[in-house]
């Protein structure tokens, strides 16, 4: 904790950054922290409740953060995959940001959790954790951590989805999407949803109906999922933000599996690996093209 606070203080004192975005204790669990003065650095913490993907605050869509152009961000290994997408898609410049990497042994799915990580409490995103020690960072802090406990619920739910017929699967998602109230919280928290004008907001023509009926809800959730195929880093922030509890992380996870199967692409922290949509390969299987 102290090395994190000391580093943040130093970065601000030396004028290297205008703001350090990390984690602090809030009234209800851990929450994002915005440290702009060296003396505020003592508030910074890092533990198993730091589930938030702070890379979303690097998105150029966040006009209210523009006053602090040089930002340092605290990242876990999995979060650096979101940085890699922003770099790959030319939405941020690496030299504009300072990445403070924390060694991580998994996080709870709730920022308000307490106690040790368990197979029940661990976040979906930790299920196949491959980057406990972030590489794409300027500073690496913390002690090496053991692997997070396996996530039993995710495998179970993916298994359930795969055992369903197409009709059953449609019924499952219709049931979930019917609760959608079209607040678009999933989009707002997503580090990959950086469009200044989202297709859901366009009115000439209106591509997606804004009404919370099944027609509009299906269109919205499917189009968002497709826009994230091959880009989603599986942080699960969409599902955590959803006020009606739609398992959006499950949808994206399944889609990532399909992308892996067809295009041999998995979310990575290497910005040089081309994304499946941004590359052409003559050996693409193309079996979905009739």
């Amino acid at each position, binding site marked *: 904790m102290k090395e994190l606070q000391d580093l943040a203080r130093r970065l601000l004192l030396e004028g290297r950054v205008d703001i350090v975005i990390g984690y602090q204790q809030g009234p209800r669990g851990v929450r994002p922290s915005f440290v702009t003065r060296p003396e505020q650095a003592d508030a910074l913490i890092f533990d198993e409740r730091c589930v938030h993907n702070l890379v979303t605050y690097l998105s150029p869509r966040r006009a*209210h953060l523009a006053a602090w152009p040089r930002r340092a961000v605290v990242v876990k290994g999995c979060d650096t995959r979101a940085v890699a997408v922003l770099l790959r898609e030319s939405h941020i410049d690496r030299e504009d940001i300072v990445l403070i990497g924390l060694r991580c042994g998994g996080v709870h799915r709730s920022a308000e959790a307490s106690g040790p990580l368990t197979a029940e409490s661990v976040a979906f995103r930790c299920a196949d954790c491959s980057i406990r020690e972030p590489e794409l960072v300027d500073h690496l802090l913390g002690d090496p951590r053991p692997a997070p406990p396996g996530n039993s619920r995710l495998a179970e739910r993916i298994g359930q989805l795969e055992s369903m017929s197409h009709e059953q699967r449609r019924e499952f998602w219709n049931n979930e999407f019917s609760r959608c109230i079209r607040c678009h919280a999933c989009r707002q928290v997503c580090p990959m949803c950086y469009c200044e004008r989202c297709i859901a907001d366009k009115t000439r023509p209106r591509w997606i109906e*804004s*009404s*919370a009926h099944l027609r509009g809800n299906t269109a919205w959730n499917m189009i968002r999922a497709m826009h994230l195929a091959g880009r989603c880093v599986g942080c699960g922030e969409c599902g955590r933000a959803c006020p009606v509890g*739609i398992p959006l992380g499950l949808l994206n996870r399944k889609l990532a599996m399909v992308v892996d199967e067809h295009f041999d692409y998995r979310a990575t922290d290497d910005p040089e690996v081309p994304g499946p949509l941004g590359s052409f390969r003559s050996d693409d299987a193309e079996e979905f093209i009739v």
Partner: protein
Amino acid sequence: MQTRSIKTKELSALLDQLRAAGVEIIAPARAPGVGRAVVYRRVSGFSDIIMGVQPRGTLKEHFLPASERILGWRRGGAHLELLEASTDCAPRIVLGAFPCDAAALEVVDAVMGWDYRDEFWFNRRQATIVVSIACDGGDESCFCHAVGLSPGSTRGADLMFVPVDGGFQVEVTTGRGQAWLEEHQEYFSEAGDSTQAVAFQERATTRSSQRPRPHMESIGRWLKNNFQHDYWDQLALRCHGCGACTMVCPTCHCFDLVDEPEGPEGGSRRRNWDTCQAATFTLHASGHNPRPGQGARYRQRILHKFSIYPARFHELLCTGCGRCSRVCSSGMDMLELLGEIHDMASITEPTTSPEARNEP
């Protein structure tokens, strides 16, 4: 008004009878689907109901749905036929409304009947008997005491249930509630010993009143004088502008109107929930946005609740339910920010000391 009691078994039988008579029953119950959160929904009987848990969703969706058809049209050659949407509402009962949710209905009545009487809203209000359940005092995000309510507040409810062993003590609070009770009196018994119910309410009040109680009037004055303040941009730094707080708020009621074609021959005009937290809420056709950043948008939410609505309707647009704090994925906290504004107000208003907000 009188006090009666009802046993769980009798309540269950009463609900069965109501359903048989075609009355819709809305109560806290688990939502279908993966999340299984408790929400207010239509239930088929007592066994579905989870009494005494504050639902994640609000009661408002049963009075102001997230999306609702309010007009239709059909085209026949050069002729355009307008189709009125029915504003009728079949008889309903809400059972187990939280006091903060029941009170919110009355708060929102003011704007729904202001310059135009909203038939959809008021027909549903008139068709619905609201039975609330006394709250056990809530959690650390609750602040009903600060906004003039309490865990046992009966505002907006026709009857209130207080949990006791084997059933509920029933307090009748309106004439409608009285008439409804008399209509179904065979299910109710005499009030009997009130010791348990009184103890429940006392415990709840103690829990609730121990929380900070920012001074709403001085906050209102500070808001009026500090439209331009660095606080807003600082406050909104962590805010994603997702609007989940407004969606789960029992008093947020802003909506958008859209016309949706449904094939070449017709379509529907719909009223959909909208949120002041979205940039598109105030985006002009010219491209100009009078609320360009999240600071301005968050300020709007706070001003509307604690300054604008009180100025127009003489009451706060907030019942202290705490859902906005609970739902926020980035940890924005209403009670915390009201405390901060209270403290800033206390600098210019010596009568409002920073300590005062912690006094019960």
